[in-house]
């Protein structure tokens, strides 16, 4: 191959890399928008049971119920206005805790319970050592107790 042709080929590869990078980004972001629901939009959208959708929101405090088998759980996802019951079987990610953000892929059952096939938990921007967090929690609980008393 002549050096000139080689240069042309490599320039072409660079252009293809650039264009495909842009296309990947565009399609990824558009797809994300088309089937993403929050409890409020899900309630309004009248999605048929069995259709694959994605549900996002916050895990309601105190709503996580672990079944006796150790792998099945149910919990409630909420946004500012509404909430949606979710059932899931499997290992939950480390960041899946009450009050954290969650994104679930799955389908609605006919009884309107959302059956998740996968769970994504979100992290907030805080990095806190475990011992410190425990101290904070106890401190917060103590203040609460004092206030309620």
């Amino acid at each position, binding site marked *: 191959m002549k050096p000139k042709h*080689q*240069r042309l080929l*490599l320039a072409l590869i*660079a252009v293809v890399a*650039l264009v495909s990078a842009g296309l990947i980004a565009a399609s990824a972001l558009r*797809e994300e928008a088309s089937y993403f629901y929050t409890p409020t939009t899900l309630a309004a959208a009248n999605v048929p049971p069995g259709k694959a959708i994605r549900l996002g929101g916050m895990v309601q405090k105190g709503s996580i119920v672990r079944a006796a088998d150790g792998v099945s759980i149910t919990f409630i996802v909420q946004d500012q206005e509404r909430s949606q019951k979710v059932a899931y079987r499997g290992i939950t990610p480390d*960041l899946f805790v009450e009050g954290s953000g969650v994104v679930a892929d799955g389908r609605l059952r006919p009884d309107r319970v959302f059956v998740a096939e996968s769970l994504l938990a979100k*992290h907030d*921007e805080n990095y806190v050592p475990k011992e*410190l967090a425990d101290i904070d929690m106890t401190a917060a609980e103590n203040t609460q107790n004092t206030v309620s008393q």
Partner: protein
Amino acid sequence: MHRFANPARFLRIAKPLTPALFWLGLLLTLIACIWGLFFTPTERLMGDTVKILFVHVPSAWLGMGGWTGIAIASIVQLVWRHPLAGVAARAIAVPGATFAAICLITGSIWGRPTWGTWWVWDGRLTSMLVLFFLYLGYIALSNASSEKGDTSRVAAVFGVIGAVNIPIINRSVVWWESQHQKASITLGGSSIDTAYLVPLFIAVVGFSLLFGALVLMRMRTALAEMRIEARMRRMAQG
């Protein structure tokens, strides 16, 4: 700026600077890794996987900082015709691409236990992958072009245009509803506890010094190759 334009003068500075940056960078990197691995507390939610922070964040910083360097050097090359700027831009490309790759891989490994997935197509992850592809494109282009003349300017223009992606990566977590959390360290302060922040800072400095040493090594390689080429040409003529 043209004080450093003379390659001989540049080499007089670069030759002692390379080992200095390298050894100091290696020392700080090792300290940060050992500190991070063995002497940091478990995190409240993610437990021990927080230790991945100490390789993931410096790599992300260098992946993005690398392209910023390419863009600045490319502008200097295009506007002032500074002879070393093009050499510097090319020298950054492979280290920058490698750190972008390390950032993507360690992020993916971190995502599996904490988020529950190896990959999501959210704004941050996608724009970082785009950065990696831009590096590959830039490397292909700059290998294709000769050291001097119009073809090397094509790579420089690509380097400047590609810089559009850098603020996109930075803002991605704000602009789009994303899986990746928002910035922990901002001008206003940090939401990372000091127990992690200090070794993280050492890691960022250590990685950056190593990056500097790598760029100097690759610039010296390019300059030596240019000297060889020039001498060969003269010998062929004489």
